[in-house]
């Protein structure tokens, strides 16, 4: 893999740090008038999702990370792996539980997910911003209630729990914002 010097560091560049691929968020040039220049870099570790700061001596190089994002559609899980397909090449790829993390609860068959591959292996799976899921369990609500009064918890088919307005009932399909984990609306029939 290519090496990148600090003068090539910019937001979006993927580099290796402590054995983990990282995405550079910011690179600030720091230099005392009579001294060595440094790059103060803010980056996100792609596997642990931690944001950290690292200072480099200007002109130093680090190894690039072979990381790419790809759009794949979710097929099924065998309990150990979650299988995705490239709809153009029909190649399949399997992601493990670590790559999915909390996003397991937003996986809907045939939905297109963004999968980050590091050396060809999935390390992060990001579901679409909105998914539609059926409610399997929720208390019957009061009639005449409207959205915005606090709502009630509802368990979805994937096991996710979201707060929904009181008028939404068991068996209905709702639209959820996966970034916030919040109810957006009833699904359009």
């Amino acid at each position, binding site marked *: 893999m290519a090496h990148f010097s600090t003068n090539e560091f910019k937001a979006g560049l993927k580099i290796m740090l402590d054995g983990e691929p990282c995405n550079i968020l910011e690179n600030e040039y*720091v230099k005392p008038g*009579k*001294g060595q220049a*440094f790059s103060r870099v803010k980056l996100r570790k792609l596997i642990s999702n931690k944001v950290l700061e690292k200072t480099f001596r200007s002109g130093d190089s680090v190894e690039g990370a072979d990381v790419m994002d790809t759009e794949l559609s979710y097929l099924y899980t065998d309990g150990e792996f979650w299988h995705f397909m490239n709809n153009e090449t029909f190649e399949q790829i399997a992601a493990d539980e670590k790559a999915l993390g909390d996003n397991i609860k937003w996986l809907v068959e045939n939905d297109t997910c963004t999968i980050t591959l590091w050396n060809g292996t999935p390390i992060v799976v990001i579901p679409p911003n909105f998914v539609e899921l059926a409610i399997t369990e929720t208390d019957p609500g009061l009639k005449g209630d409207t959205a915005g009064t606090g709502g009630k918890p509802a368990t979805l088919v994937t096991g996710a729990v979201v707060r929904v307005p009181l008028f939404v009932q068991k068996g209905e399909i709702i639209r959820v914002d996966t970034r916030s984990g919040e109810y957006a609306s009833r699904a359009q029939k």
Partner: protein
Amino acid sequence: MNISNEWQPSGSVESLVKRAKILSDIRLYFATEKVLEVETPTISPSTVTDVHLEAMRTIHTNPLSVKKTHLFLQTSPEYYMKRMLCAGFPSIYQITKCYRDDEVGRYHNPEFTMLEWYRLSFAMNELIDEVDTILRLVLNTPVCDKATYRELFFKYLGLDVKSDTDLKIVSICENFGYENIVPLGFKDTLSTFDRDMLLQLLFCEKIETQIGRERPIAVTKFPASQASLAKIDPADPWLSLRFEFYYQGIELANGFEELNNVDEQKTRFILDNKQRKEGGLEVKPQDMKFLNALDVGLPMCSGVALGIDRLLMLALGKKHISEVLSFDFAAL
């Protein structure tokens, strides 16, 4: 037609009105103090040897000669101004453009404005007081703090920069996660160059961020190995009479009680070039006219360079140097 906004100045009218006001206040101050305003060339056939400074270059064509001359743009007006002092000029100041290659950032524009002045017969402390007077005038700051370089390292990092070992400096760096900056293959000793480089790192990241918050601070007596063009402290040869001003995370001014010993000046040029060579950098020719002037004699004096753009950032609370320039580097 798609009209882009890229032609517009990077600084606002408000910023540039303030710039004009500050420049006029500074000129008024020096007029009152009877310090002479001068202008010196911004180009020269030679440049500084500083290991951490790179000059931009240009080429001059002479209509009366087939030879083309390679010239450097000044990184500061120091050598020309000292040549004037050696020739008998009184205390002088100038407000001039300086140019530094390979420096772009929040506090760095490749072309910037410097206020540089020299005070005959001033000792370091007298010039520190005058810098403070100007800051109070322009920024309305309270009287500045003063601390030595050594005191600050001791206070913030528990490190005695004079007597502690290289191993201790390295272990502090490693504890802060700077193991990637420690020279490869370090065992127990660092070159003076690398020791200073790590001290500069710790100063930038762990001290500069904590000092000069409420009021400006003058940091004095940098180690002799970072003396630049300052005299060595007669009371302690390990120290130099170099000072820097910091305020709210910004390095604002660098000054010296000026070195006026030509032999020592030559030695420092040679040491700089030795370090440049070791670091794989281009070796720079010595400025012979500057050395010849020093040989005749630089009167006892102190001098300082203050970044006008950074001063303006502080006066206006701006976060990026582009906001106080008419056109920053990105707007060219």
